Each structure stands twice: as structure tokens, then as C-alpha cells.
């Protein structure tokens, strides 16, 4: 009898702990399912569902230029997933991917010894780790991005940190991304503060801002699959898989942080600093939304 009681008590304690731990991401999981479903429904049959999702896109264009139905995994290709003209254009460009040279540079940087004789491998013995970034470090009680991890590795080895956003840091991250290609995004929410960070990122994503009074959501969820002038708007789902990205507009590689602060500036807002708390929270939220999708970076975008 006593044994049985102890057993029951132990089981309920364990399951209680598990339930408690799972609670931190309960809201995020709800959000993510709804988010993924929105995109799957939107791109299931744009011609049939034009009134609901694409009311102002000419029907001939939907028939001629839209690729559908899309599956979850397709969204890693951004606008090339659904927009035929973009797909054709980029298939040509990626015959000789423009990110290949900076990626080679990244490999060289990664393997070249620091002044102390060690390399990045001392910090990243397994470079296939990008799927876990950004992660919430419960000990430090903050979000750690892959750029931070690269710079902390440098400082630990007596080197100066690199400037964020582009240049060498983007090249090193490109190497890590390439080694992580095909890994599934795996963002966790391990604490109450992590859940708060997720919520803060979610608000930054959905709340209108800037002199244009627009939000990330309005362009990359609601208007994803439409055109702003001739540009096909990319879906937010899968939008972190291609990072770091070679943008033709930049003529070079850039990190997720660079892309995010650029996007915020485009709303008519003051440009926030890369790796600042709000931008990290936005990256955390946005990457979580694509949990389970395979990494495909570095890749090329307009």
C-alpha cells in the first residue's frame, strides 16, 4: 500500500515537472500551429481562395505565375516557393551561387588559427549547430545569437570581436550554416523569462510602427504572396532558414540581424542596434515560428 502510494506520488511529481516545463512554450506552440496553418491554407489554392487571401491579385496572374499547393518544407525557399518568375530567375542565378566565394572565405576564417594557435573549432567542435540558434540561455538569462557565440569565441581566444551584420562575421556564420544545412530548426523556450522574451518578439512582429504605420506581419504574413511593385513579398514562415543571406541588393552576405534592423527601418522607424534586446527577441520569435523546418543557408535573395 505504502509502496503504491509512493509510486503514485513520484509519478505525479514527475509528470507535474514535465507539465510545468512544457508550459513555458504552450502559448508559443499555439501561435506556431496557427501561423503554419495560415500559410498552408493561403497557398493551398490561391485561385480558388482568391477572395479570402489575394483579392487584388489579377486572376490571370494567379493562374499563370503562382505555384501551389505548397507544403511546409517549401517555405524555406522564400518567394521562390510560390512565385514562378522569381523561381526561374533564381534558378539561373544559383547556377553559380553568388554566396560561394564568401562561403569559401568563411571556411578559411573558421580553420585559420587565432594568435593563440586555437581555431573556432575549440568553441564549435561540431559546427552543425545553427539549428539551435538563437537560444535562451537560462544561466545568463538572455538570448544568445549565433553572432554573439562567434564573437564570444573570439574574445575567449584573445581576439577582437567582429562587427555584426556583414563582412567576416557573416562569412563565419555562413560556414556554420552550410555545415548545418538540412538540420531542423529547434528553438526552445526553457523558462518563464524565455517565454517573456518570445512574447516581446511577437509584439515587435505584429505591432504597427514607424511613419508608415506598418508591421512585419502586414507585409510578410498578411501580404506574403502579393507584390509590392514588382517585388514578391516573402513569407515570414521559413524566413530565417536562408540566413546568412546573399542579397543582390547588398551585393554581399548579411546576417539575420542585419536583415531585421533593415526591415524595421523600412517601416519608417529609427534603426535599432543589431544584437540589442528587442532585435534578439524578434529573431527568437521569428525563428521559433519556423521550428522543424530544414536550414537552407546560405542562400540568395533579391
Amino acid at each position, binding site marked *: 500500500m505504502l509502496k503504491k502510494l509512493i509510486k503514485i506520488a513520484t509519478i505525479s511529481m514527475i509528470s507535474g515537472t514535465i507539465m510545468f516545463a512544457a508550459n513555458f512554450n504552450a502559448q508559443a506552440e499555439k501561435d506556431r500551429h*496557427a*501561423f503554419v496553418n495560415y500559410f498552408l491554407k493561403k497557398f493551398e489554392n490561391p485561385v480558388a481562395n482568391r477572395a479570402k487571401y489575394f483579392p487584388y491579385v489579377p486572376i490571370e496572374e494567379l493562374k499563370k505565375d503562382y505555384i501551389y499547393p505548397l507544403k511546409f518544407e517549401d517555405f524555406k525557399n522564400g518567394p521562390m516557393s510560390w512565385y514562378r518568375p522569381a523561381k526561374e530567375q533564381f534558378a539561373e542565378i544559383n547556377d553559380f551561387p553568388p554566396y560561394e566565394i564568401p562561403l569559401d572565405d568563411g571556411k578559411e576564417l573558421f580553420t585559420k588559427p587565432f594568435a593563440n594557435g586555437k581555431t573556432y573549432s575549440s568553441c564549435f567542435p561540431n559546427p552543425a549547430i545553427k539549428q539551435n540558434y538563437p537560444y535562451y540561455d537560462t544561466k545568463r538569462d538572455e538570448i544568445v545569437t549565433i553572432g554573439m557565440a562567434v564573437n564570444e569565441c573570439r574574445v575567449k581566444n584573445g581576439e577582437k570581436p567582429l562587427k555584426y551584420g556583414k563582412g567576416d562575421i557573416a562569412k563565419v556564420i555562413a560556414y556554420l550554416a552550410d555545415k548545418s544545412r538540412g538540420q531542423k530548426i529547434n528553438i526552445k523556450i526553457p523558462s518563464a523569462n524565455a517565454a517573456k522574451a518570445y512574447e516581446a518578439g511577437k509584439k515587435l512582429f*505584429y*505591432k504597427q*510602427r514607424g511613419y508608415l*504605420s506598418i508591421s512585419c506581419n502586414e507585409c510578410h504574413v498578411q501580404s506574403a504572396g502579393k507584390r509590392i511593385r514588382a517585388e514578391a513579398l516573402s513569407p515570414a514562415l521559413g524566413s530565417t532558414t536562408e540566413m546568412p543571406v546573399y542579397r543582390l541588393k547588398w551585393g554581399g552576405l548579411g546576417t539575420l540581424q542585419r536583415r531585421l534592423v533593415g526591415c524595421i527601418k523600412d517601416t*519608417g*522607424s*529609427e534603426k535599432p542596434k543589431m544584437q540589442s534586446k528587442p532585435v534578439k527577441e524578434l529573431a527568437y520569435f521569428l525563428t521559433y515560428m519556423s521550428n522543424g523546418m530544414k536550414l537552407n543557408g546560405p542562400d540568395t535573395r533579391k
Partner: protein
Amino acid sequence: MKKLLLISTITVAFLAGCATNYPMATNSVDSAIANAQAKYNKAHSEMVAWGMTKKTIEKAKALAKTNPRKAIALANEAAYEADTALAQSAQYEKIWRAAVPK
């Protein structure tokens, strides 16, 4: 007589108060810039400031001595932007959740 003086003083003070109350047409260039700066600082700290407000204040500061009229106009424009940004943020705070897919 004293009473009359008092009343007229109060009236003048009241009218002056009204005149400077809106639309922030501050006569002094320094107070116009200070006003814009304070509002910008608040918008900036809440991470809702618009892209060009800071630059507009800097321009106003640079013109404060040589062209105070222009400087005041620029400072008032910057104050307007910061005010509008803060009001916009308060407004959207109430409705953004409705946009999250359910």
C-alpha cells in the same frame, strides 16, 4: 484700481498661456529644441521613434544661432513626429493582438 490691475494682469497672463499652449509655437528657439528633444528621448526609449526625428533635431540645433525661425520650425516638426509616434504606439498597443493568426 488695484482690483482692475489684478484682473487685467490675470487676463493677460491667461491669454499668454493660451497662446503658447498650442501648437507649441514656442518663441524661444532653445525651449523649442528642448521640447523636441524631451519628446524624442521618450519615443526613443520606448523604441518607437521615427527614422528622421533625431536628424531633424540636430538640424534645428545647427541652425539655432543663424536661423532661429527655421530652427523653431524644425524643432516643432520633430516634436510633432515624436508625439505622433508615441500616440500611434499607444493606439496600436490596444489592437496588435487581433492580427495574430488564431
